[in-house]
């Protein structure tokens, strides 16, 4: 298949792009992955708009002009005037088609040859073996299982997973048959006190309340004979009961006596998507009078999802850290709400997840490798009118929750909010392969690892990384307990309302101030060196100045 099939008008002269202060004359060119706009007003600037990033193309034709409004998934907007209506329609149609090609092999990352140098390949950075190596120092109760090497037990799990040491592969296979999508219980997080968070899909008990001894054994063995644990079902009791009639279900107290179960009320991704659409609509609607802004914000329900997810994660964190109990988390499929809760719990509990490397590791292990269906959930954004039913803003919701934590704990994160905004953008449209496909199985099929570049390689490269650092960061051990009071949760301006966001400037000033202090520090050592050099010279000539030398040393000590 050739991209040119989809490109009806490859080039248009005399178009205009609206920029901050007026319009720029441009030539518009369509390629397989980009709309490229070359400006002619002397500066010869190029604007590259990735098709995949375009969520919707709005045609506003009038007698005076044919305006195309490209609404992007990262909430930017481009307005382009095209001389003829035919060309405008052709361009609009081409972009719409090219932006919703769903064959992974045609995606931009397979064609993108990034021009930066990197020392580490992001695809090799975070793997189950590394993870296991570090956690085996804390506990000897776990092992790596290769049972899923060919994705035959669970097609959405990675090839290697961490399971209890004393559970055989045969038992795992049986447990997998009892769990939705074959997602048998695996280790998600091991806390410093030895308690764990595990995750899985819902048990397939059905109406007859079937049981599976192997599944019971698999999770009971984590508790030993004395401890009790908690099962967090992210659905409401009612939703869980309803799931039974479709073959799903939940663990009954009778069959899992060591576990106490509680239900949460996280909404399904499709409901979250509706909120996402509403909040983006409210934020993008710049013309409307700002009356009833808070009502609009409230009725979108976005912040109440944020609150629900944060509360659920706090609850799990509390069980693990305060009560010393292990927790098993699942919802229906175990690929959305479940991951939201387990990953946020780790951000709350584990200081490592608040470093850049640790955070990317968390996303790689708990989202990408854990089989969150990025390709489906992020296929269209909030402003598209051709949505399939599988879109969901789950990952963006996770980023928003982390952003709330970052707001409340501005000193505890090594990265700044800018990283979160970039992650949102790359999850929806990217030149890197990290978020391609729905799971590891698909990624292997399309050879993502060898044919594309990892986003992590880019983010961690020496020239890029400093952009995302939080200058105020101090390494702080321990748990961070956020407030989920409604007054503490704020709309994420930096993502949703791009027009005023002073935080980058604040960050710049703090960084400057810190680097200025480093300069001073260097000057001090330079000067001290100078002085002691002089003093050594003097010592040979006049020993009377001994006193001055002591003074200089004092200063050095007090620095």
């Amino acid at each position: 298949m050739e991209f040119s099939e989809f490109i009806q008008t490859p080039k248009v002269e005399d178009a205009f792009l609206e920029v901050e202060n007026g319009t720029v004359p441009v030539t518009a060119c369509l390629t397989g992955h980009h709309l490229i706009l070359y400006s002619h007003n002397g500066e010869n600037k190029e604007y590259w708009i990735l098709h995949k990033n375009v969520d919707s193309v709005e045609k506003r034709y009038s007698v005076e002009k044919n305006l195309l409004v490209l609404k992007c998934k990262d909430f930017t907007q481009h307005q382009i005037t095209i001389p003829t209506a035919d060309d405008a329609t052709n361009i609009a149609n081409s972009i719409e088609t090219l932006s919703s090609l769903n064959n992974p092999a045609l995606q931009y990352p397979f064609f993108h040859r990034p021009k930066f140098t990197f020392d580490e390949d992001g695809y090799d950075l975070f793997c189950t073996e590394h993870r296991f190596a570090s956690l085996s120092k804390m506990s000897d109760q776990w092992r790596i299982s290769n049972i899923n090497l060919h994705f035959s037990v669970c097609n959405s799990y990675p090839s290697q997973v961490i399971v209890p040491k004393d559970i055989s592969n045969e038992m795992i296979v049986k447990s997998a048959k009892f769990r939705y999508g074959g997602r048998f219980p695996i280790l998600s997080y091991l806390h410093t006190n030895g308690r764990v968070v595990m995750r899985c899909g819902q048990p397939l008990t059905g109406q007859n309340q079937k049981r599976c001894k192997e599944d019971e054994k698999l999770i009971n063995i984590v508790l030993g004979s004395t401890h009790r644990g908690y099962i967090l079902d992210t659905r409401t009791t009612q939703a869980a009961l309803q799931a039974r009639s479709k073959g799903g279900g939940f663990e009954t107290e009778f069959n899992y006596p060591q576990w106490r179960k509680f239900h949460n009320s996280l909404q399904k991704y499709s409901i979250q998507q509706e909120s996402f659409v509403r909040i983006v609509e409210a934020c993008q609607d710049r013309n409307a009078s700002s009356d009833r802004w808070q009502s609009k914000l409230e009725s979108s329900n976005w912040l109440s999802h944020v609150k629900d997810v944060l509360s659920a994660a706090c609850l799990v964190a509390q069980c693990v850290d305060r009560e010393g109990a292990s927790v098993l988390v699942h919802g229906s499929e175990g690929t959305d709400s479940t991951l939201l809760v387990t990953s946020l719990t780790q951000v709350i509990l584990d200081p490592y997840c608040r470093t850049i490397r640790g955070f990317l590791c968390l996303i790689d292990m708990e989202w990408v490798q854990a089989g969150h269906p990025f390709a489906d959930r992020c296929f269209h954004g909030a402003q598209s009118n051709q949505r399939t039913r599988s879109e969901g803003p789950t990952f963006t919701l996770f980023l928003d929750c982390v952003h709330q934590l970052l707001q409340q704990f501005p000193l505890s994160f090594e990265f700044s909010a800018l990283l979160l905004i970039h992650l949102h953008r790359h999850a929806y449209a990217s030149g890197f392969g990290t978020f391609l496909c729905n799971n590891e199985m698909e990624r292997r099929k399309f050879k993502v690892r060898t044919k594309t570049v990892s986003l992590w390689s880019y983010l961690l490269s020496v020239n890029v990384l400093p952009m995302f650092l939080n200058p105020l960061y101090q390494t702080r051990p321990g748990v961070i307990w956020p407030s989920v009071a409604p007054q503490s949760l704020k709309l994420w301006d930096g993502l949703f309302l791009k027009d005023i966001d002073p935080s980058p400037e604040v960050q710049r000033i703090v960084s400057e101030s810190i680097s200025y202090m480093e300069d001073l520090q260097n000057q001090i050592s330079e000067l001290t060196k100078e002085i002691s050099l002089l003093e050594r010279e003097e010592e040979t000539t006049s020993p009377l100045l001994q006193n001055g030398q002591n003074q200089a040393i004092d200063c050095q000590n007090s620095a």
Partner: protein
Amino acid sequence: MPECIELTPMDNSKSPESTQKADTMVESTLTTKSDGVPLYPGEVVCVALLKDVTYLCPYMGALTGRLVVTNYKLYFYQGTTEQYTRCIVEVPLCTISRIEKVGGVTTSSRNPDGRNPYGLEMFCKDIRVLRFVMRQENRQRKTIHDKLQELSFPASNKLPFFACLFKEEYAEDKNGWTTYSAKTEYQRLGMPIEGWRYTKHNSKYELCDTYPHLLVVPAAASDDDLKQVAQFRSRGRIPVLSWIHPESQATITRCAQPLVGISGKKSRDDERYIQLILDANPHAHKLLIFDARPQANAVANVARGGGYEKADVYTSSELFFCDIHNIHVMRESLRKLQDACLLAHPNDDKHWLSNLEQTQWLHHSKVILAAATRIADRIESGKASVLVHCSDGWDRTAQLTSLSMIMLDSYYRTLEGFMVLIEKEWLSFGHKFAQRIGHGDKNHSDSERSPVFLQFIDCVWQITQQFPTAFEFNEQFLILILDHLYSCLYGTFLYNSERERKKEDLRKKTKSLWSLVMSLRDDYLNALYVSAYQNHVLLPIAAVRHLDFWAGYYARWNPKMKMQEPIQERHKELLKIRDHLRKKVEELERQLAAKQNASSPALTIPQDAAALSV
């Protein structure tokens, strides 16, 4: 969740002397110390009620501890002398606006859970509602209640404000009463300026008793003209200069409404005077009059003898209505905000945003900011002169002039400049603080009370949120001002006008809040301040979506709402380190220079060392 239950606002005054034993229920005889209770110089314990008092914290539930009433504050704490004492509630008595006996015989249906324990309930001006439960025997409650009634409302009880008893000593060079001098400020603005002159006509406040002693008026207007104009302006508040643009000579002037009345009176003197203000600005063709009120209110005022400048009479001016509502609407809005903040019902969590919207508080802030931004913009980019008034010219007018001055002039965004701004636009021009706040007055439902000044500070905070690097002061400074707006610890905000303050001799009898600020200057500095913004005019976006609920102020009594990490502290720490390093570099450079001078001339100074100097 965080374990800290410290509910007191940060009080940065020096830690007062402390600790001696007090027995149960003593009407103390001027002892200056009490166990565990920090006291200010001049502060004495009046009622010390040990143990058995329970504070029903709206967020943390019931807490049992000790209650002490001094002549300045109510203090509730846990712990004993020897051990660490933890302050749970500290509220200056003047901050209390209403005290009620609840439970027992005097029944009240306020308690939501149906039970109604015996005790006291206090409504505070800083939007706290405090409820204490005490035992019914011993007449404890009566003693406390009577004492609180007496001391909380000194003005009603013909008692002195605590500000007059407060004996704190501040260094001479930190005397806050010298912060503002009208003359110095007008000189800073460039006076003498062509077209304007000082008038001492109000030096004994006979022209206008709510105006300051020194005024700047159009040079072409004689003192006699002023007298005539005063006749035609409500309360004699004639148009006078507030601010002048250093280059374009565009001005902000302020006044009260013209006394047009039903008969449609005119004043040639007033018309001529308005023309003179316009003439003083060589760039302007029309004087822009911003009437802060909604048009309907301005029209309604005609029936009461007031009015506005009609276009056919004031041909050289253009009138805009800013649609800002009156003090009663704002009072009601704050009351709703107070209710919303309590989150009293379980469902309030879900409806926080729509509840917030219904208070209209942010909407009112938006309208005010929009008008102020418009004024600033017309002055800066249109080089126009602006006259601002409302009805009396001491509430909404002060909000608009001071906010647009903050946007236009970076001086008012410094710590000193902001104090000057408050002294000038609010205190000297007669914003009636005593009436609006009800200092020491027991009539809690007085319809003259209104949070006009709070709203101004809130708007300033909103601007700091949009321009976090443009202000030299920080959020703590704004909160400090608001806390002492109510506390009556300092004389700064007492009484209604410069005339009254002078008559009461407050400069002698009380301390200025600015003395405290200047003594603890570092605590109120914004680490993010960059002077690069110095010549910038700030035009904030006045849209509700870009305004925030000021949780750091309104929700600070909820311990869960506290900023979880001390980012301010970290900023301050960085500033300190920076200053330390700077000094160090300077010192070392001096040393090096001294050494180089002393040592043999054969040693040349390395080029680098010279280039490094800051």
